[in-house]
């Protein structure tokens, strides 16, 4: 039962940790690095609450072994705002009341950011299908979808890189 030493980049900062055998990236983020913004809702990749961006790809961090993160670049909800300035998606979620309990919100925001990086002008249908892996039980998705599309419109206007 060996432990793997892992060096990675999280939200632009170098991090190091020892991965426990079988530990997931989500475990490492939450337990070793103290980044509890990524949530575990299912542990099986079905709810999206643990969404992070791994080397540019949106993934469920519960389905990535911590050891796999060696040398990888990871972006989490904690890196989304620029200091005290919220990302336009975060701002629009607040303005549209696109969260109720807020538990799925970090995952939804990370997933929405990944969407706008590849598609700055998504249709409602494209947005809904992209976010189909992020379960939200409170909002019925209505305000979430509106917030994402409104943020996309603002970002196109301002040419803010996603």
């Amino acid at each position, binding site marked *: 039962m060996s432990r*793997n030493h892992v060096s990675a980049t999280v939200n632009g900062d170098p991090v190091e940790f020892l991965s426990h*055998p079988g530990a997931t990236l989500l475990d490492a983020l939450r337990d070793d690095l103290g980044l509890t913004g990524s949530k575990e809702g299912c542990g*099986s*990749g079905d709810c999206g609450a643990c969404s992070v961006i791994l080397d540019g790809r*949106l993934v469920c961090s519960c*389905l990535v*072994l911590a050891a796999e993160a060696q040398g990888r670049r990871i972006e989490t909800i904690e890196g989304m705002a620029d200091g005290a300035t919220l990302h336009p998606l975060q701002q629009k979620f607040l303005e549209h009341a696109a969260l109720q309990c807020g538990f799925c919100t970090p995952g939804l925001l990370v997933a929405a950011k990944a969407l706008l990086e590849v598609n700055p002008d998504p249709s409602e249908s494209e947005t809904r299908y992209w976010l189909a892996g992020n379960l939200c039980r409170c909002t019925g998705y209505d305000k979430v979808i509106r917030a994402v599309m409104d943020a996309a419109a603002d970002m196109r206007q301002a040419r803010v890189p996603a």
Partner: protein
Amino acid sequence: MSHIDYMAPASAEEAATALAAHGARALGGGTDLLVQLRAGRLPPGPIVDLKRIPGAIGIRREGGGFIIGAATPGMAIGENEALAAAWPGVVEATCLIGSTQIQGRASMAGNLCNASPAADSVPAMIAARATCVIVGPSGRRTIPVEAIAVGPGRTCLEAGEFVLEIRLPPRPPRSADAYLRSIPRTEMDIAVVGVGVNLTLDESGTIAEARVAIGAVGPTVVIAKDAAAALVGSKADDAALAKLDAAARAACRPISDKRGTAEFRTSIAGVLARRVATIAYERATSRP
């Protein structure tokens, strides 16, 4: 999920050696493996990550066909325009696997080696006559995709063997494929039935060659030869589609489970076969 060792070998041969260890498991995207380990459905054992093997991730062309690295995520497959143009059915099937997040990780080879009869990409690959390159302690061999799964969750792979790449043949003229599945929701479900159809037309637009593969209606993907025969010689007209529907249903040997009844699976296989054949035919006619 305790007592698991992890290694990420830098060559296929090293990986084969590592995988020969008792209980070792190959890790591609991990979207099935990690779930099964966590649920205790697999005994713990060493994890051999294939992603650092050169060529394990990526798509390249060779001799008019495509070579897809075993750990290439679905999202990368969907982004490859040449592949999507040549094999739209294979690509759409692969891109149906799970959510956007799953697409960021899940691979065709993983979908194949998980050996679920409901795997989305497999009927499409079988219809496309895809092959896979297997690496093992005794070297390399190439086998058709349909030879991999021998039963639910069981493959023909020997100890130490793993799929390194999947090969799609060159696309002939007037030829196309398509895939559709039936799920209860619009996303995030396992196929209750999935149908892949690959067609090649002659110059008159008549179907010269057809292959129909149906998922989730038997212990492994069913290659419906009679269904394919129903299409050959036709222009996918209503009469041919009706014969296809009946032949597809006749090929089904499904079970009833929490995801669907045998009766439902059988009838939907016929419906989807018709719809998929129509899409493939339209695609083929639009290709010079």
